[in-house]
Structures are given as C-alpha cells and as structure tokens.
C-alpha cells in the first residue's frame, strides 16, 4: 500500500504528503469540529443543535436568547481550542529542544515564570488585564533564558528538566509569599486562577488569544520543518550543518511566547503539552513536520473536552479544566515515564 501521495502544481511545485499523518489530521479535525458543536450546545441552559447551527450560519437569524447564551459560551470554546493548540505546541517544542519526552512548559518553569510576572504585575503594580499577557511573556522569556543558562553546562536533557523543576518550585513559593502578604481575598483569587479555569474568559480574552495564535501557530508550523536535526542531538546536528544552539534558543523563546497569553487569560494548564506531544508521536511517529499539527489538534481537543466535561458533567459544581487535564496528565506522565524506562 502507498504510504504517501504527491500534489503537483505544474512541473516545478510538488507537495509530497504522507498518507498516515494526513489521515490522522483529517480525523482529528472532524473530531474537533464535532467537539466544538457539542461544546457550544451543552451547558446549564439547554439548546438544540438546530439553534447552534442557526447561530453559526451568518445568513440565518438566531433568536436573542440563543445569542445571549452564546455570548457566554463562544469565547470559552474559542479559547479552549486555541489555548489547547498553543500549549501542546509549546510542550512539543520543549520536548524537541530538551530531547526529553517529559518536557512541558510547567516542568521547565516557563508557566511559573509567566504566572510570577502576572501576579507581580497585578498584585504589586496593578497592571490592567491588557498588559498581563506581555508581563507573562516577559516572565516566561526571562525564566526560559535563566533555566537554559543554568542547564547549559550540564549538557544533558535531564539536567534541563531538573533545573526547570527547581526554578518552577522556587517561583511558585515566591508567588505564594506575594499572595499571602496581599491578604486572604487576594490569596483566594490566586488559588482559583492557579487551577487553570476557563470560566472567566471574556470576549476580550478570546480576541487577545486569537491574535497571538494567528501569529505563533503558523510560525511554529514553519519552524517544525527545521527541527529534524535537533532530534539527532546537538553534535550530530552541527555535523550536518545545522545551528542547534541558536535553533534551540529560538524554539524555547517561541515555546514561552505560546504559553504567555494563556497563563494571563486562564492560568496554567499543567501536563497538556506533555500529553498532546505523546499522543501525537504515537499516532504519526517522530517527524516534527507531521507531529506538530497533530499535537496542536490533540491539545485543542483535550482542553475542549476537559472544559466541556468540567462545566456540564458535575453540575451544579463546575470543575476547572486545568484540574481535569492534570488528572489525565499525571496518568499520562506515569505511563510515559514507565515506557521510557522500559525502552532503555
């Protein structure tokens, strides 16, 4: 059976496409569309699928009731999809850079760096929400640079993870100190945010995340074409003419930029980058050009399902998506660790 086909545009332009990744992408895209429709339909207020479809079609008039409910649902669904894709991309980039399948923005301290900047910006300097994404970006960048600088001499992928974990723990402790000093109410607010909930996502948040996604997701897809040499290791990559150190630095910065707006809008979502990357590699193998888009769709689908389940299955209790993803993530983490040990 053929494993790939080629789209030819004239005699000069050829697009070779692997059959398996294309099939996986098509199935995931269909699942994501179905998931999005159900996420828009399900909630505390009952809506029929007809109402949802009528609201989605620009030439159909949706009734006022449906439109009002959708004003609460669509920003949340949009952010779940985009945030899932961005966190998954960030996680996969870090896994390639560190050559460690357990890497994740949370494990490398990048999420905590962003959180610390958001907390300091909001609690100490009273930054407005519009500036929190940039504060998170600065915090994420600074932490990524700091972790990479500390891990540079260790020259091992495990060293990067250990340094990242240590920096992450130190930053989490610093955040708690700031919040406790700010009083019990501020601490309660911090606790709610730190669980990674999409409840407080607004239209403005959705617009901000969409803007970042529109720039960073295509850039990540382009970058995935250059990432193959990094899988060989730095020495071998340099041997075939690549610049692994420069590329690693760029990809780490990109990973930090991908999680920055998400941390600012919904708080940290732990383990999603790890789970999505693993599922994607299991589905389509190791080639970054194929793994990256599949990881994006997996991340989007996982966060969308987690959020929809969290806000519909346990009513009247709303469970933050971050908690459900963390539960799934811990299981995935243990399985991944077990598999990586048995493969040695």
């Amino acid at each position, binding site marked *: 059976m053929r494993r790939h086909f080629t789209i030819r545009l004239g005699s000069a332009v050829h697009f070779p496409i692997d059959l398996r990744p294309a099939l996986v992408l098509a199935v995931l895209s269909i699942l994501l569309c179905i998931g999005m429709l159900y996420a828009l339909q399900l909630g*505390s207020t009952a809506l029929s699928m007809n109402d949802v479809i009528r609201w989605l079609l620009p030439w159909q008039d949706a009734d006022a009731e449906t439109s009002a409910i959708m*004003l609460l*649902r669509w920003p949340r669904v949009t952010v779940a999809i985009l945030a899932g894709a961005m966190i998954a991309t960030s996680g996969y980039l870090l896994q390639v850079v560190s050559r460690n399948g357990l890497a994740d923005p949370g494990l490398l301290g990048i999420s905590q760096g962003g959180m610390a900047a958001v907390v300091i910006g909001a609690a100490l300097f009273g930054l407005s929400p519009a500036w929190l994404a940039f504060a998170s970006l600065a915090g994420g960048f600074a932490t990524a640079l700091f972790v990479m600088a500390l891990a540079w001499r260790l020259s091992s992928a495990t060293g990067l993870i250990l340094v990242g974990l240590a920096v992450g723990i130190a930053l989490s402790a610093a955040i708690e100190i700031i919040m*406790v000093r700010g009083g019990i109410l501020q601490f309660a607010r911090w606790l709610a945010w730190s669980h990674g909930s999409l409840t407080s996502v607004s239209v403005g948040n959705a617009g901000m995340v969409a803007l970042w996604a529109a720039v960073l997701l295509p850039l990540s897809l382009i970058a995935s074409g250059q990432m193959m040499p990094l899988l060989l290791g730095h020495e071998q990559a340099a041997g075939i003419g690549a610049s692994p150190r420069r590329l690693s630095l760029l990809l780490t910065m990109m990973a930090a930029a991908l999680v920055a707006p998400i941390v600012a809008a919904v708080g940290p979502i732990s383990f999603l980058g790890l789970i999505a990357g693993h599922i994607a590699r299991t589905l389509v193998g190791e080639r970054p050009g194929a793994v990256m888009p599949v990881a994006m769709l997996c991340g989007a689908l996982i966060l969308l399902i987690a959020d929809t389940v969290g*806000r519909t299955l346990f009513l009247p209790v709303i469970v933050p998506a971050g908690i459900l993803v963390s539960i799934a993530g811990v299981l995935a983490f243990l399985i991944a660790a077990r598999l990586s040990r048995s493969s040695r």
Partner: protein
Amino acid sequence: MRLISRLVLAAAFALAAPAFARDVTDHGGYVVEVPDAPQRILSLHDWTLTVMTRELDAPLIASAGRLAPDGSTFIRGARELFGLDFDAIALASIHGKPDLERIRSLKPDLIVANIGDYGPLREQLSTIAPTLMFDAENGDKPFDLYREYAGWIGRQARFDALKAAYDKRITEARQKLPKTLMDGNYSAILANERDGTLTLLKEYGVQTTVLDDLGMSRTALAQSVPDGQSRMTIGAELIGEIDADLIVTSYLPESGEKPESIFSALARIAPGYEIFLRAHEAKRIFSFSRYEIYPPSFRGADIFLDKLEAELR
C-alpha cells in the same frame, strides 16, 4: 394602530426609565448604573451579601451556596441566622465555582458579588445584569460596609431601623456586663493548625464590631494591622502579644470543629500557651460559631451578645 402602539411603547419606556436612575461606585471602583429599587437580586456570596440582603428584606431571588459533605447544598450564615435555604430561593452557583449560564437563566436585575472571588468575572457578569463588587475585608468596619451596601440596594431606611435597635441593645449590654472587663482590651484570633500560625483579626464581622461598640480596646499588635487590611498572620512565638482581658475566636461547624477546638489548636501551635495567656487563667477565651459571628448582621450581633452575656454571667 401603529401610532397607538408606538405611543404605548414610548410611555412604557418613559415609565421604565426611572428604574435605572442611580449610579453606584462599588468596591472595585466601577461606576455601575443600578435600579432604584431592584426586584430580582442575585447574591454570589452567601455569608456576607446574602445575609445582608435577607436582613434588609430586599427581594433576593438566588444565592451562591456551599456543598455539604453529603452532597446537599446550603447557604452558609443565612441558614443559621434566618433559616434560609434553597427551597426559598434559587441556587445561583456553588461558592467558588461560578456557573454564568445558571446565573443568567435566573434573570436577575442586580448581581452582587464579592470582589475576591468574582473580580475576574465582572465583565461577563455585567453582560447579564448590573453587577456590584463588594469587598468585605477592605479594612473598613463591618457595619460601615453594611450601611454602604444598604445604600447600594436602596434599603438605607431599613438599615437605620436595625442599627437603632442594635445601639439600644449595646447600651443595655454595657450595663449588664462586668465594667472592669468592658474597660479592658480584647484579641480576636483564628488558630491555623495546618501551618502552625495565628491570624490576628482587626475586623471580623460582628465579633469585633460588638466588642468595639461595647467600649473594649484592642491590643497593641491588633492596632498595628496595616490600613486596608482586616487581618494579619503571625507566628506562634508571638503568642504572648495576643494576650488580653478577653480572647475571642470562632469555629467552623462544617469542618467538625467545636467551641473547645481552640484549646487543642493552641496547644498544638504554641505548646505551653497557658503560661503566656492570662485570659486562659481567667477563663476568658471564648469560641463562637463562625456562621453567626462572621456575617455583618444585626441578628448575628444579637446572638453574639446573648452568648457573651451567658459566658460572662
């Protein structure tokens, strides 16, 4: 016919307009246009906003509630003080787990929420109904906050009547309680067994309000709590600094605590505390149900005074 219907519509708007005539600046600093006399108030904080709204006899249609260990829901504070439950009003959300769609489906004309839990949701809540953010622990005195809140929802007269009755009760209590004690000082604390610290309370519902109004003074450490804050966490080695003629604390029944739990908590946090606290020697460490003394409520103040009088009799 069309002209008549337009005139009817115009008249309806003219009549409806005064319903949104007041601007209120809430504790988040937002200027919110609220109904003059709201008819469907939804509260998102049970033991402050729900209690005050109920006591002011304002039209409360729904409240946030808590989950009991058996899975049932209850309204903390309002259940104990007024017997209010979810047969009488609707459940708006579980505390800390807001469900915007449920809130919207209840069609409130005014939402009141505490800024600590709902500040980030203000934008979305405001798309449902005018939303006022309340900060119960901004350092202001509880009954000053209560008066302010009564003004927000147009119930100032009811507040004034309740306050007058409370002032009368305080005057009577001053005559009943030992004068030496009323001229002394007090500490209001919480013992945090989990991390081995003590919380010194500057403002804590009716507990501190009543003791202040009775004329008792505060310890030097309590006076050092920064402006704009209602409490301060201190280490156990400062146990001697909280000593006073009277020490009051509270317990949370839903966590299985009892009035005597404070003594085991103090023994765990600061072993040998008995030596440092003359209030212990004088048997003047009292613990009260937090359901009754945390809410800013005149009913709660009455219950607190009843229990205080009984303890000191």
